[in-house]
C-alpha cells in the first residue's frame, strides 16, 4: 500500500520535473547553437603570437613570453608549444595566415629541404635569429664511474653501423680497452628532437670521420645513403634508450642507474648539478665557459625563425623580438635559465637583424 502511494507520488513528481526538463533541454540547445554561431564569426580578429618548436628553446621563449605580458598587462599572452624542432619547422612552413605559427623555435639550423617547403607554400621571407648557444651534454650520475670519452668512443658505442658493420659493442671496454667494462647504456631524446640531431651532427658524425678514414670519401658521394648508414644512424638494439621528449625522465633514469649516461641540453645539466655531472669529451667537460668559447665539441646555436609577412598582421610580434634581444645578454634572465650567451659580435649582429629585419639568405643553408 505504502509502496504504491510512493510510486504514485514519484510519477506525479517526475511529471512536473518532466516539463521543466523539456524547457531545460530547449535552453541548452539554444546556448549550444549560440556558442557555435559566435565562434564561427570569430577567428579573423587580431591574434596572439604563436610559437612552436624545440623543447630546448622552449624555456627561453616562455621566459620572454612571460616578460612580454608582464611589461604591459592586457597584452594577449603569446602561445608557446613544445613539439620538437623538426615538427615545429614543418608546421611553420605549412603556410601564411592566422592558423599558422609566427615563430619556430629550433635547436638546429633549418635545412635546405625545409626552406624549399616554406617557399613552396609561399611563406615568403624568413628571419633567422640566433638567440644563444647550448651544449649537447653527455652526463652521468654523481655516483657514476666518471667516464672520460672521445668522439671516437661515442661513435663506436652508439652508431648503428660503426665502420660499416652492425654494432656489437656491449660494454665501454669493447669500444676502447682503456675504458672500464661497464655495459653501454645511454638515454637520449627521440629522432624528432633537435637535441638528437645536434648530437648526431656534433658528436656522432665527427667521431665517424675520425674513426674511419673511408668516411670522408662516403660523405662526398652523390648518394648520402651510405654515409648516413655508417655515420649518422643511432643504434636501436638496446644500448641507446629513447626516453621521449621529457628530459626529466632522463635525469630520473640516471639517478636510478648510476652506470647509465644521458644526452640532453646543457640547461638540464646545470639545473641538476647536485645530482649529475658532465662527461668530458676529448678532455673538455661541458661548462658555461667551455661551451661559450667553443672548446667543448657539443656546442650548438639555438635559432628562432620568424615569418616576415606576419610582422604586420600580428600585433606585438616585432616588440616580442626586440624584447628577446634585450634579454639574451650575459647576466640576463635567459642566461639565468641556462642559455649560454652568444659571443658579443654575434649578439650585435642578431640585434641588428631584428632591427633591420634582414631576411635569411637560402644560399647559406645545407
Amino acid at each position, binding site marked *: 500500500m505504502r509502496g504504491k502511494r510512493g510510486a504514485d507520488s514519484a510519477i506525479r513528481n517526475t511529471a512536473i520535473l*518532466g516539463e521543466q526538463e523539456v524547457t531545460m533541454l530547449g535552453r541548452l540547445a539554444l546556448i549550444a547553437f549560440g556558442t557555435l554561431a*559566435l565562434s564561427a564569426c570569430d*577567428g579573423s580578429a587580431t591574434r596572439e603570437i604563436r610559437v612552436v618548436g624545440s623543447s630546448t628553446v622552449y624555456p627561453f621563449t616562455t621566459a620572454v613570453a*612571460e616578460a612580454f605580458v*608582464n611589461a604591459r598587462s592586457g597584452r594577449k599572452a603569446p*602561445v608557446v608549444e613544445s613539439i620538437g624542432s623538426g615538427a615545429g619547422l614543418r608546421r611553420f612552413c605549412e603556410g601564411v595566415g592566422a*592558423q599558422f605559427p609566427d615563430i619556430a623555435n629550433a635547436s638546429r639550423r633549418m635545412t635546405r629541404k625545409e626552406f624549399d617547403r616554406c617557399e613552396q607554400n609561399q611563406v615568403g621571407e624568413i628571419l633567422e635569429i640566433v638567440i644563444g648557444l647550448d651544449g649537447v651534454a653527455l652526463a652521468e650520475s654523481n655516483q657514476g664511474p666518471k667516464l672520460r670519452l672521445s668522439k671516437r668512443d661515442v661513435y663506436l658505442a652508439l652508431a648503428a653501423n660503426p665502420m660499416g658493420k652492425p654494432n656489437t659493442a656491449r660494454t665501454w671496454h669493447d669500444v676502447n680497452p682503456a675504458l672500464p667494462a661497464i655495459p653501454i647504456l645511454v638515454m637520449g631524446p627521440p629522432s624528432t628532437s633537435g637535441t638528437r640531431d645536434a648530437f648526431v651532427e656534433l658528436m656522432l658524425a665527427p667521431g665517424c670521420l675520425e674513426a674511419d678514414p673511408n668516411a670522408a670519401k662516403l660523405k662526398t658521394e652523390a648518394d648520402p645513403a651510405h654515409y648516413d648508414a655508417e655515420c649518422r644512424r643511432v643504434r636501436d638494439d638496446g644500448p641507446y634508450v629513447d626516453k621521449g*621528449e*621529457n628530459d626529466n625522465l632522463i635525469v630520473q633514469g640516471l639517478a636510478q642507474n648510476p652506470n647509465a649516461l644521458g644526452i640532453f641540453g646543457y*640547461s638540464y645539466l646545470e639545473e641538476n648539478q647536485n645530482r649529475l655531472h658532465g662527461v668530458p669529451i676529448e678532455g673538455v667537460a661541458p661548462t658555461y665557459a667551455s661551451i661559450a668559447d667553443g672548446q667543448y665539441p657539443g656546442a650548438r646555436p639555438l635559432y628562432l625563425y620568424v615569418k616576415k609577412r606576419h610582422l604586420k598582421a600580428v600585433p606585438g610580434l616585432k616588440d616580442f623580438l626586440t624584447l628577446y634581444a634585450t634579454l639574451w645578454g650575459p647576466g640576463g634572465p635567459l642566461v639565468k635559465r641556462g642559455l649560454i650567451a652568444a659571443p658579443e659580435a654575434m649578439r650585435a649582429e642578431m640585434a641588428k637583424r631584428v632591427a633591420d629585419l634582414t631576411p635569411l639568405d637560402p644560399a647559406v643553408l645545407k
Partner: protein
Amino acid sequence: MSKPAAQAERRPTDWNSPAMQKRIRRRYAAERRFRVLGAGAVILSAAFLGFLLLTMVAQGWRGFTVTELALPIDLKADGLKIERSQLATPAADLALASAGLEDVVDNAATRAFGADGATYLAPSAWLAVRGAVKRDPSLLERRTTVYVPAATGFDRALAGDGDPAMEAGVARLTRQGAIHRGFNWTFLSESDSTDPVAVGVWGALKGSLLTMAITFLIAFPVGVLSAIYLEEYAPKNRWTDLIEVSINNLAAVPSIIFGLLGLAMFLGTWQIGGHSFGPMLPRSAPLVGGVTLALMIMPVIVIASRNAIKGVPPSIRDAALGIGASPIQVVFHHVLPLAMPGILTGTIIGMARALGETAPLLLIGMRAFIVTAPGGFTDPSTVLPVQIFLWSDEVSRGFVEKTSAAILVLLAVLLAMNGLAIYLRNKFETRW
C-alpha cells in the same frame, strides 16, 4: 525393481566419518581462502590508492604554501623616477618597468638582506611591489614594507634541501624575523609561469571548465536524443543492430584516435573543387577541445542513457499511452524523467573521463605555455591534466611540488564531480 531396494539400503550420511570430516574441512578451507583472496584484492588496491595519495600529499602540500620575505623598501630614496599621475594611465606597467622598478627592488633586497639579498627573491618579486604600488600610490613617497615571494632555492633551503649559501641566508633571515609562510593564493588565482613560485592552476582550471562546458553542451543533448530515438522510435532491424554495434565499438576506441580525428576534421585545411577551406575551429581553444572530447564521450552517454531508458518499466509507457498521451509526451513527461538519474550518472562519469583526458588534447594544440587565463571559448588555453604534464617536464626543480599540487587540485575536482553523480543518483532514484 532394484531402485527402491537401493534406496532402502542407503544409510543416513555419517558426518563423523573421517572421509566426511575431510570434505567438510576442505569446504571450510576453500571458503576461507576465497575470503582472504577477496580481502587481499581490496587491501592491495587500497594500498595502491593510499600510496598515490600519500606521495601526492607529501610532495604537493608545499605547493599550496608560499614563503614570503618582508622587504623594507623606500621607492623614492632608491631613485624610482615616476610621477604619481602616471600610475592612473593604462601605460602604468610600462612606466614602472622602464623606470627600473626591478633593479630598485633588487637593491632594496641587497640592503636589507645582505650581499646575496637579490638572489633570495623570486624573479616575480618586483611584480608584487608593482601591484602594491598600483593599489596604493602613496607608497611612492614613503618608506614601507612589502611582502614579496622568495626564490625557489630559498624555499628549498627552508625545507632543508638547498645549497649552503641559501641555508646561511635562511638562518640569517629567520633571526631577522623576515620570513613569513602562508597559504599560496596565487596558486589558485594565477596561470602558467616560468617561475615555479609564481605559477597557478587557475588558467588550466578555467580552460578545463570551458572545455567541459562545450563537451557537455554537445555530447549531452546529442547523446540523450540518440538514445531516446534508438530505444523508443527506431525499428529493430539490421541497420539499428549495426548502429548499436558501432556505438559499443566507438566507446572502446582509444582517445588518441579522437585526437587525430579532431585534428584532421576541425584544424585541417580542405581542398574542395580547387578552393581551400581553412580550419573550421581555432587551434588550442577550449572550443575545439570540447568538440573533440564530445565526440569521445558521446558513445558512453548513448550507452548509459539507453540502459537507463530500458530500465523504465513498460507499464509506465502503457499507462501514459492508455490515458491518451502522445508518444512525445510519454517520452518527455514520463520515461525521460524516470531515466534521468541513470542518464546523469552516465554523463557525469563520461565528463569525468573527459576531464582527465590528455592525449587527444595534445594533438589539437592545447599543450601550450600561456601566461594568462583564457577569456572565452575561442582563446588559446590549456587544461588541468595537460598542465600537469607540462609542469612534469619543466627544468626547474621547484615544479616538482607544483606538479603534485596540481594533481591534488585535479583529484579534488574529479571527487566533486563523482560526488555530484552519487548525490543526483540518490536524490532522483526511484525504486520499483
